[in-house]
């Protein structure tokens, strides 16, 4: 948690990152940046999914609709915050010549998306009960 707080401070303080270690090959930094952007797109897609659930499923019961939309939006927020945090951690690891940080977030997100997909299949097969 303390590590996370320090990372949050680094989001806003670029000079502190560039004081640590040595600058890596710019291609590695750019690859890290693209990974960050890919996660940001994932987050935007989740947020778009939240809007879509709210807009295009008017037949769903209010609680289900709002619950599903808020869950997708929360996942989007989590995903984008995690994107910048992971980017900072990777950037620091590359500067210090350490191993890149490992994360269980992709597995958790994958499982969550799979659960939502299975739930949607069940809802469709059950003929929109509810």
């Amino acid at each position: 948690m303390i590590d996370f707080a320090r990372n949050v401070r680094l989001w806003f303080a670029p000079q502190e990152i560039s004081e640590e270690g040595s600058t890596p090959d710019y291609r590695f930094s750019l690859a890290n940046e693209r990974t960050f952007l890919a996660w940001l797109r994932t987050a935007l897609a989740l947020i778009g999914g939240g809007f879509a659930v709210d807009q295009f499923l008017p037949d769903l019961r209010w609680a289900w609709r709002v619950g599903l939309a808020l869950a997708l939006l929360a996942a989007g927020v989590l995903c984008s915050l995690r994107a910048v945090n992971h980017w900072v951690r990777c950037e620091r690891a590359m500067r210090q010549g350490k191993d890149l940080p490992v994360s269980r977030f992709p597995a958790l997100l994958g499982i969550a998306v799979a659960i939502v997909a299975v739930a949607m299949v069940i809802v469709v097969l059950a003929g929109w009960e509810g």
Partner: protein
Amino acid sequence: MTSPPDRDPGLQPERTRLAWRRTTLSSTVAAVLAAKAALHGGITAEGIIICALCCTLWLSFLTVAHHRITTLATNSAPPPLTPRHATAAVLCTVAVAVCAAVLVY
């Protein structure tokens, strides 16, 4: 632009530039969905405010992306993305999600 011997054979800056473009496109889709949601149930003061807010956020994201693309295009060995820009891009995304939560609720 750079002369051919300087060019990175892996086209890393170009790929990064296109990644920014794709992300801007995604944020455009989110902004359009937000505008549709905000103005869906008739034009209300709340809807207009949220719609304007989402447009501003989209413009902010566009500015960040454009700034980064310009930096990538003008340097043969581009400097890394600054945390400030990364945070700005993420905060725009989070703010759109907050607007969405207000609309949904």
